[in-house]
């Protein structure tokens, strides 16, 4: 049976180093399979976060040969196996141990976004919505919260502006709420003042790494930016606001 070398980051907090492991490989294997073999046979205490192993839960995010990927959806036959495959934890979040990072910031950010506020039901007790209107939001609701888009976003990764910018995941989340056919809440002021929508300069790195192929920048972030511009910076609107005061 063929084998390959996996260069895995080991350590906790700021301390750590790569360690090489050799594992046998079989047809169809994904990176997470190799990590599991290594864990079961060579490194029982290797820390890795995973759940569904089918690309549906978004738990096993990591950086494989430098690219943010889900370990469970990265086939070994898509990687050059003649050289070591590097597997590292995500960089935009505090490191916990081995391949695990502390992603709790994401859960705190979500709480700061105004929740869904539906309009009243129709007379017959239902809500009628056209599939076409639902489609647009369903794209955003495909998100599995793997946080790879957060990991790759330079505003978070390089500039560490976690206290000023909610990141692509939560702009998609906000867009899903804002474009929800039933929602009546307005999040434009928050987007501009608290959530830092202006920090995104549309490099589209997030869109490229999304395992659910959500068109994050074009379909979610840009329309949100346009809403902010329409409401905050449109000269006519500005005049209206002044007169209303």
């Amino acid at each position, binding site marked *: 049976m063929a084998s390959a070398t996996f260069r895995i980051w080991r350590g906790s907090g700021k301390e750590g180093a790569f360690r090489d492991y050799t594992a046998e490989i079989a047809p169809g294997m994904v990176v997470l399979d190799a990590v599991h073999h290594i864990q079961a046979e060579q490194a029982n205490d290797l820390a890795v976060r995973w759940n569904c192993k089918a690309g549906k839960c978004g*738990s096993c995010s990591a950086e494989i040969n430098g690219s943010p990927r889900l370990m469970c959806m990265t086939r070994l036959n898509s990687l050059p196996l003649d050289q070591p495959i590097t597997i590292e934890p995500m960089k935009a979040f505090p490191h916990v141990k081995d391949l695990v990072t502390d992603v709790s910031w994401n859960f705190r950010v979500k709480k700061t976004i105004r929740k869904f506020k*539906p309009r009243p039901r129709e007379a017959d007790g239902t809500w009628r919505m056209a599939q076409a209107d639902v489609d647009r939001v369903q794209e955003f609701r495909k998100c599995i919260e793997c946080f790879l888009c957060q990991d790759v976003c330079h505003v978070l990764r390089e500039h560490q502006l976690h206290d000023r910018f909610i990141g692509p995941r939560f702009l998609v989340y906000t867009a899903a709420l804002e474009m929800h056919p039933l929602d009546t809440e307005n999040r434009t002021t928050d987007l501009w003042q608290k959530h830092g929508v202006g920090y995104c300069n549309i490099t589209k790195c997030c869109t490229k790494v999304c395992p659910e192929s959500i068109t994050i920048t074009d379909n979610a972030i840009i329309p949100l930016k346009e809403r902010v511009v329409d409401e905050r910076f449109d000269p006519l609107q500005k005049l209206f606001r002044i007169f209303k005061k």
Partner: protein
Amino acid sequence: MAEYQTYDYDVLVVGAGGAGLSAAIQASANGARVGVVTKSLLGKAHTVMAEGGIAAALSNTDERDNWKVHFADTMRGGQYINNWRMAELHAKEAPDRVRELEAWGALFDRTKDGRILQRNFGGHRYPRLAHVGDRTGLEMIRTLQDHGIHLGMEVHMECTVLRLLKDSGRIAGAFGYERERGRFLLLRAKAIVLATGGIGRAYKVTSNSWEYTGDGHSLAFHAGASLLDMEFVQFHPTGMIWPPSVRGILVTEGVRGEGGVLKNKDGVRFMFSDIPENYRSQTADNEEEGWRYTQGDRKARRPPELLTRDHVARCIMREVREERGSPHGGVYLDIAWIKERLPNGAEHIKRKLPSMYHQFKQLADIDITQEPMEVGPTTHYMMGGVRVDADTQQSDIPGLFAAGECGAGLHGANRLGGNSLSDLLVFGKRAGEHAAKFSKENGTASIDQAQIDETIRSALAPFDRTGESPYQVQQDLQTMMQNLVGIVRQEQELERAVEEVRKLSERASKVAVGGNREYNNGWHTALDLTNLLTVSEIIARAAIERKESRGAHFREDYPAKDPEAAKFNIVVRRGDAGEIIVSRQPVKEMPAELKQVIEESN
């Protein structure tokens, strides 16, 4: 003795899937101080994997549907040993729970007139499943999560409960540990809701994630609660089988609901050759009629591919055993053929089954719009669980509740697809409501330090030993259960399984782990072994006791249904010396009006 942090709650919910979050939401809404413990991050629980939909008689897609038909379908699927009161509550309340999800932001696929669209599924007479493509579970868990986080509940992510604590008969709290730092937690609570899901990890081929180690079943059993129907393990007929690394991953029944057909290597639709008597009048007898059914023809009867899961799984096994299977030991599931019937077939498949398209393309290099999938049975769902009161979901232990997969009763001998998500919503909510009520009516119980000390001692023991790896014991257990307590069972093998569990328990008590307590998956695996071994033995013991074949439980040595065995459920509880006591409990007589509902639906 090691230190631990203490938290105080009115209601502690163990598990944050559909049932746990529903319970936590309802308990919070009723004014209880709620803590939630989840083994993973919030929103990653196994509910996320549910694909097909939520069964609820909304009668949007077919106005002939109503709670009575749903009730009768559920009882028929469960072979009439279900708890009929749960089946009644479930059928009546599921539509409101779906509408509630919509009010919290869930966006279901729509009918042409803008209402919630419903799809066909196995064992359901009419199109009944509210769905979002084939990612309904994700929609559901995200909706509950995003609604719940604004209600004030405290969520302990990546925490595991090791033991339930009692105070002279009633529940007092739980003791567990958080994975990140490996620290212990005491979670005092007036009431506890177990919502820990199933037991799939006791088997080698499973659609379940690592979390599914029967924690709630085992915690409740060791605390003295009774378990019910533990012989009934559902093997989903269609799991992926190739390549080896994806073996077991679920292929939704929705594929068959959308017109997908099962074929053997000779291209024969073998499901037509074995239609059970009690479903004959509802089942199409030719391919054309089956196709018309999937396309919404109300006069047509459903194709045999949409018979109940237990039956379809056994038919697939038969084809494989009789050497009519596919190259890797399964059969073919073909959805690509619908292109012959639908002008934009490929696009239609991608729109209705996007995750399936994605999953096969990425993991198996198969384009399901072009070629058939290879599928075979995979361990999927546990019908058995904690015995609960139908209305309140309370177990035998005052203050201990259970909901969702770790509870029992609704599904009887076999669960219908789509009835799980609705189960989570209906009984999660009920458990939360009654747990909150219990916490208001009862004070805080006292904690027994000796129970805590003992838990800590045994939890830390693997660090002080030198011995084999916990992964080895886990793998050997999974292989044993797959071979001896699988789809087709017989007495000798089941007896051997009980013996094997004893040997494996011996080994488990000696496993060793390296490293420290911080995020140590090896240590966690060692701790999970107790639960896996407990549920494995219980399943085997209950399976020995049921000497007939019914629903998901198939005995090669007793291949027929025994009318006498339709009169009891099997109950398992722990004796004073820790032994497993198996007994029979008579099935309660159904009230006349429900009997009539069933008769009318025949």
